[in-house]
């Protein structure tokens, strides 16, 4: 996209059209985030990805929990469900089970995901629910004004850790790998093009894709996960990283001080829909097939 130097009229026109396409995914509500918050570039990334993949607005359902990150669905012109703190994945699973045809994205903060929502991640991952889960990992509770989160680093001083955080943080990437997630990646809000690219890949993946997005909370974290710190720390996964190699992915994920961006792991295996279809055909082969298919889909299609 660094093509601003080239004076080709046609290309600019094309870009404009493309850009317009992207904008159609934005709702009329402007994001209410603090100026400079890393989350803005994630909105850009998601609209870019949807546009690139040509997914119709009506076919997208974005599910979120509670938190600054979880305000996300209000800013997009798609179907959206702003649910409860931590319940993103099971609600999203219900939507996907009801209608295979939808593109389902789940979105939440690090607290939403790994504190209150932690029970649900292993199961969405092992069942390989065909959805994309974006965790906006700012290492803090933003919406409630700056408490320690499960990904806060040791020594971080917050309003609930006035004597510095003493709890070892979790490692989201290792966790997701251990759960059997079929696509695991990491991006950084400060590298928006790479971020958009990874969102696109995650959405294109058939199965459960998990993207950890490192993102600064400019208001409540002035010391740890800042742009300047992250700019110094992040690196790309090595060129020769084999994303089919689980152990290699694990090894990369352990290097938390120098977080690598890219696709850690991906694999193809049956999705939850595949599993449910297998069950249906087994059930039907035992008995003459009966009428009542998935009327939800019929209804949606019927109008």
């Amino acid at each position: 996209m660094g093509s601003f130097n080239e004076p080709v009229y046609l290309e600019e026109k094309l870009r404009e059209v493309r850009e317009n396409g992207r904008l159609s995914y934005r709702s009329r509500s402007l994001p209410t985030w603090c100026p400079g918050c890393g989350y803005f570039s994630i909105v850009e990334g998601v609209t870019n990805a949807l546009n690139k993949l040509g997914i119709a607005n009506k076919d997208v359902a974005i599910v979120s929990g509670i938190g600054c990150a979880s305000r996300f669905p209000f800013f997009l012109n798609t179907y959206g469900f702003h649910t409860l703190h931590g319940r993103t994945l099971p609600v999203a699973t219900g939507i996907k089970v009801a209608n295979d045809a939808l593109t389902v994205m789940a979105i939440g903060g690090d607290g939403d995901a790994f504190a209150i929502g932690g029970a649900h991640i292993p199961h969405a991952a092992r069942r390989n629910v065909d959805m994309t889960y974006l965790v906006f990992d700012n290492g803090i509770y933003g919406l409630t004004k700056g408490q320690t989160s499960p990904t806060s680093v040791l020594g971080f001083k917050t309003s609930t850790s006035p004597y510095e955080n003493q709890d070892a943080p979790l490692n989201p990437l290792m966790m997701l790998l251990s759960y059997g997630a079929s696509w695991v990646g990491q991006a950084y809000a400060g590298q928006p093009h790479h971020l958009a690219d990874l969102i696109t890949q995650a959405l294109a993946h058939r199965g459960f894709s998990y993207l950890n997005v490192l993102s600064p909370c400019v208001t409540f974290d002035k010391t740890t996960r800042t742009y300047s710190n992250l700019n110094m720390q992040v690196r790309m996964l090595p060129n020769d990283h084999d994303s089919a190699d689980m152990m290699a992915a694990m090894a990369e994920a352990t290097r938390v001080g120098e977080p690598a961006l890219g696709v850690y792991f991906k694999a193809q295996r049956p999705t939850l829909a595949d599993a449910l279809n297998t069950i249906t055909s087994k059930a039907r082969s035992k008995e003459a097939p009966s009428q009542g298919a998935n009327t939800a889909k019929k209804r949606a299609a019927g109008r």
Partner: protein
Amino acid sequence: MNRTDVQVAFCGSAGDGTIAVGDIFKRAMARAGYRVIAFDIYPPEIRGFGKCIARVRVTAEQAYSLKRQSDVLVSLNDGHAIPHVPEVCDYGAVIYDNNPIAALAEGRHISGHIQPAQLPYGLPMRELSEQVTGGAKSRNIVALGYVAGVFGLPKEVFMAAMEEKFSRKSATIANTNSAAFDAGYEAGATVFRLDFITFGDPKPAAVDIGDVRMMTGNGAVVRGCLDAGMNTFFGYPITPATSIMERLAVELPKRGGRLVQTEDEISAISATIGAGYAGSRSATATSGPGLALMVEMLGLGVMAEVPSVIFCSQRGGPSTGMPTKTEQSDLHLAVYGGAGDAQRIVMAPTNVEGAWRCAGKAFEMAEKYQTPVIVLLDLYLSNRYETVVLPRNNPFEAESVKTRPLRDRGMPYERFAFTDDGVSPRTIPGEEDGMHTVTGLEHNTLGRPNDQPEMHERMSEKRHNKLLAALDHPGITISKRFGQEGPVDVGILGWGSTFGEILEAMFLAQEEGISCSAMKVVMLSPLPIEPIRAFFNDCREVLIPELNYEGQFANLVTAALPRAVTRLNRVPGIPMSVDDILDQIRRLAAGARASAAE
């Protein structure tokens, strides 16, 4: 007229096959065309020698509960059965092994406990079993055959019921069983018999009005879900609701529906609501502890106006409580469990047919009023068998969604538009041009977060008022009065499975000449105030019997319609005793007569 009404109780210890013969007996009677109500009580442990009782009431016309007294008691273990001898009515029969394996100490044999007016039927069960099968294990089947023989019941229905039950077992077992049955039957057919207990003809008329089946409350829920076209189900195992999921796991996929066993109840209700948002008819089933975990998400269903159906089969509480005992103590939680003003629909069927109807209607209501609908059952209703008559035509609406008119396309979509009935037209994901975001935050008509005073007041009103229409929802009985019309001395107000015992007690009281009448309330939230008020106006005294300690239903009713009522609260873990209710009715009637005489 030969009105059949016979209750048989089989009592033994866990290894005796007590529940099994009870099961064969009720299935045989149902096959013969009788109406059946049956409920088993057994110990919570998977292993052990605890007491089991299987009670089966066989009638020609619909009955409402088990009778307080059994006509026949079959003892497979005297130690367990002796305390139940008093429950046998006068001229009722006690059947026991008159040649047990070891001589019993005095007082340990049941024959010494049979009361003067009861008829003892000794039968060498063990001996006969050993003679014809080479082992003592078939004692239970011998006893079953004996019952059939004594009362001259048709052999074929028993054979068919045994075949059904043991269809997966070997041919040897089938032969053993039929030999044991025959031996018992012969012994019974030749014994001297008094005619106080007789089985008349089953009433064949019933067959004409629909599909007669014997099923449990949970079975009826499953059938209701399927008849209402449920698409998806999410559940987590818990007694006494598990069998709903287990049965659906077999049946739902056959119809193209989908079932997922989730990681917990929070996930189950979340997925149910997710699926509901996506336009699916979706449900989950649980018991009190699971419902407790669900209440936060139910609040989201209320706020975001998303349909969902929750079956809750109650057991003894609080906490893990008494998983294999019955109780009606999750009512507070079902109606009031939620942060904020989170009203939803709560229904409780009173019998198996009602369980089927409430199940089916719950999906209509959830969709139509855009709300969670809780259907409260309890262990007693979930597990008890009744013969029910289902109409031949599926009475449930296939779709109850208030859709957005096509002409509104292109206009800003007000998902939560204010309307006359409080229900806003709804679009579902995948639908063209109906994009919107729903939220658990208070919001304006577009669904955008908004916490202004007027908005919250109007939206609160909308969420509450739209539910009132459920009180006139077609095709379901919201409340109903039984017994004497007009002013009465005693009115009994009841809900849930206990209403069977209430009716039974009321009929007995009427026979005693007491002026009384009973009302069942099926819809518990919103409460049908007007019919209850009318009933109250007719009653000098009101009695509210329920199986909980706090008088949860009485709390609900008196908060809505302040008046003095008499509460009968019991928590035995088993169905309420008809005698307890009857005693209260008598007491209140006496008081009412006395005060009228003043």
